[in-house]
């Protein structure tokens, strides 16, 4: 392997009384993919934010290509050739691919008076061709798939002649095929000597793509190992420092029984096509499918967040009209969005408000709110769901993803919802917290709650679901009991396009 590109040693960082990084180190060599793993809150992103100049270290050294450097801000990092590709992409959707890549340094003509789009598109074509990417420079970013948008970000980084590229959960929003595309790009970059930091929770991916793995835990450096000399179990145990909850397959609860929710012939534009299914009491119904299969759309429509063109929804055998989310909530349906920060919770408000928000009416007498009752109930939720928070007065944005998710679950439990729709319940949640969420879902089902769980991770679907609904292009292609079900079977139905179905 090559020489060290970036060396961080003895990095210390404090935030308002929290010791976020304790003498951490990290080394990136050119031409390697170096995975950085750890639970949320372990300090990975703080470490990388220091490297990219978002934060300033309190103490420690950063060396770049052998010489010590000070990285004052993100611009300085970019100038050195260190770029981070964030989970939320930083692209202007209404501009073209080329415009996005050359934003802030557009080629000009006539002494800088006019934009030279021709030159810009030509250079972009060249860059795209270099990376073997089939993207038009003049395509609007909003017309591209998430995967392609990510490629554009990568190309943009490359165009700055980045030597070190940091990718934060790059595959979170990608389907399997798209992940393959991304990996091909990463391998190409590696061959060209770019050093890549790869932050991810997905062990299988790390095993495939990374050369070395550095593990962090609770703001401390744990170890760096060669990927080919280690096992997933070892990495996970270094990450969590404790045993993981593990169960072979889901057990049907005794409460399994009557149909609580039935969807009949749901249609909505091109996204939902004649979807029918039943959800029983005490059951976890997994919804599997590729990105864009229409699972989230079905969930949102049932919850009243989007309107339906046709179809009916029955709750406990009774036809109900759900025109808006508050109608669904009244029927006892709770929805946990895949995008917690945007749709799931009020990040600027405290834990207790987030717990109470769906049932505030219950805490108010003649509209007068009882602060102490809200506090008591939310403290009870924190205790019951083992939410890690200093107090119920803590603002939600200071909690980790897993704990935010628990607070949202608590919100619906407080509201006495007995039909819960989980959309990607463990997205962005670290492994330790994941198994806690799994345990929670299991116990909710055992208590007689009915759960629809949308997940793009097949092992998760198989681990949790009693029954699996597979969707493809807006249609339900299979409704399968989960006994002896395999990932292959699910994938078979998830890719069963309409032509094949009729053939």
């Amino acid at each position, binding site marked *: 392997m090559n020489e060290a590109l970036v060396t961080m040693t003895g990095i210390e960082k404090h935030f308002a009384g929290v010791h976020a990084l304790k003498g951490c180190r990290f080394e990136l060599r050119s031409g390697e993919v170096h995975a950085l793993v750890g639970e949320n809150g372990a300090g990975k992103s703080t470490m990388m934010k220091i490297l990219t100049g978002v934060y300033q270290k309190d103490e420690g050294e950063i060396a770049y290509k052998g010489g010590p450097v000070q990285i004052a801000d993100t611009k300085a990092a970019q100038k050195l050739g260190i770029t981070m590709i964030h989970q939320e992409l930083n692209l202007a959707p209404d501009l073209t691919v080329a415009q996005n890549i050359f934003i802030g340094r557009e080629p000009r003509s006539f002494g800088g008076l006019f934009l030279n789009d021709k030159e810009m598109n030509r250079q972009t074509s060249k860059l795209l061709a270099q990376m073997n990417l089939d993207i038009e420079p003049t395509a609007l970013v909003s017309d591209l798939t998430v995967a392609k948008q990510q490629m554009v970000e990568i190309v943009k980084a490359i165009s700055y002649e980045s030597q070190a590229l940091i990718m934060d959960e790059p595959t979170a929003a990608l389907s399997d095929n798209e992940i393959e595309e991304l990996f091909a790009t990463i391998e190409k970059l590696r061959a060209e000597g770019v050093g890549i930091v790869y932050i991810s929770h997905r062990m299988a991916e790390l095993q495939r793509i990374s050369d070395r793995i550095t593990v962090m835990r609770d703001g401390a450096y744990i170890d760096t190992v060669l990927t080919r000399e280690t096992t997933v179990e070892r990495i996970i145990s270094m990450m969590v420092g404790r045993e993981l909850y593990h169960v072979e397959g889901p057990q049907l609860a005794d409460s399994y029984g009557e149909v609580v929710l039935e969807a009949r012939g749901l249609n909505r534009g091109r996204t939902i096509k004649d979807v029918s299914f039943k959800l029983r009491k005490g059951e976890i119904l997994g919804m599997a499918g590729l990105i864009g299969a229409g699972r989230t759309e079905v969930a949102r429509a049932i919850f009243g*967040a989007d309107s339906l063109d046709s179809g009916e929804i029955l709750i406990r055998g009774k036809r109900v009209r759900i025109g808006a989310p508050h109608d669904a909530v*009244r029927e006892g349906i*709770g929805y946990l969005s895949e995008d917690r920060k*945007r*749709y799931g919770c*009020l990040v600027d*408000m405290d834990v207790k408000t987030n717990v109470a928000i*769906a049932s*505030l009416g219950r805490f108010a007498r003649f509209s007068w709110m009882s602060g102490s009752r809200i506090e008591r109930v939310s403290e009870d939720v924190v205790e019951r769901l083992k939410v*890690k928070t200093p107090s119920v007065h803590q603002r939600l944005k200071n909690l980790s993803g897993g704990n935010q998710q628990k607070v949202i679950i608590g919100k619906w439990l407080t509201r006495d919802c007995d039909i819960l729709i989980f959309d990607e319940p463990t997205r962005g949640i670290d492994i330790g917290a994941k198994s806690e969420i799994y345990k929670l879902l299991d116990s909710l089902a055992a208590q007689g709650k009915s759960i629809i769980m949308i997940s793009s991770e097949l092992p998760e679907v198989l681990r949790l679901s009693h029954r699996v609904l597979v969707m493809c292009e807006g249609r339900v292609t299979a409704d399968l009991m989960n006994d002896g079900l395999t990932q292959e079977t699910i994938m078979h139905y998830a890719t069963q396009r309409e032509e094949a179905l009729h053939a």
Partner: protein
Amino acid sequence: MKKTSLALGAAPTRQLSIFKPGWLQQFLAFGSLIALVVIFSFASENFFKFSNIVGILLSTAVTGVLALGATFVIITGGIDLSVGTVMTLSAVMTGVSISFWGTPIWVGLLVGVMTGALCGLVSGYAVSKLNIPPFIATLAMMMIAKGLALVISGTKPVYFTDAKGFTDIALGSLLGDIIPGFTIPNAVLIFFAAAIIGSIVLTRTLVGRYNFAIGSNEEAARLSGVNVNFWKIVIYTIAGVFTGIAGILIASRLNSAQPALGQGYELEAIAAVVIGGTSLSGGKGTIIGTVIGALIMSVLTNGLRILSVPQEWQTVVVGFVIFLAVYADILRRKKGA
């Protein structure tokens, strides 16, 4: 694991409770208010006199009550440009009721408040159900109210000469009757009472909590089963009630409803809210901040007038104060992040 989280637990929250969001901004605003009072008191002996202080408070009352309503709307992340002219329309309707229809004063007051509430309701409906951006919806309402006030009054002021005691609503002094010499006008009492009620509604009731939730993240509130459209209408209606009260106050002070007056008050109200630390992006804000913001504006105008600074320049200074106040808020936010 549990142990560390507990150890981390108690201490930071206790420290943090002093520095609750918005607290520093209010402290800054309050500090600036005190500083202004001190500076003007040294600059002119005429400033810190009972009669002048009462004058300042009286001149704050109308804009202040408007600003209370504006605070509610701004916390949803919206804006209400119609409060100035709706205030005028409310004043005109009160005048029409009392002077033209010959109703008792209390009915006139009710008509004034209901007019404000109705306008708020319409704005709220337009913003929520019709999905018209608040800026546009309330701009339209501003013009509608302005026009209606002129049409209904026949473009002439409506006088309350026959309604005995109408001016006492704003200018009489209940307190002065109880404590001789302590003649603080009722308008000031009404302003403070409205502020206290507004503060309670905002912090202690359902609608107040939903107000913050909607301003903080409207979509998340909707997906939590909050009937966002309904509550927005309620919030705009509440703002309308405050506007109606302001209309009564200004009519009572002038003993007439002046249909051409009113435009420009909405911007002063918004300025008071912003100086008081309420965020225009929604989700953050307090009533006490708005009260302080309104007081800062009138102390500034009053003090500068006493120092014989021409009126044109007073406006320039107030403009700069808004720059300063909002910039201070941005600095604080940066530090907090």
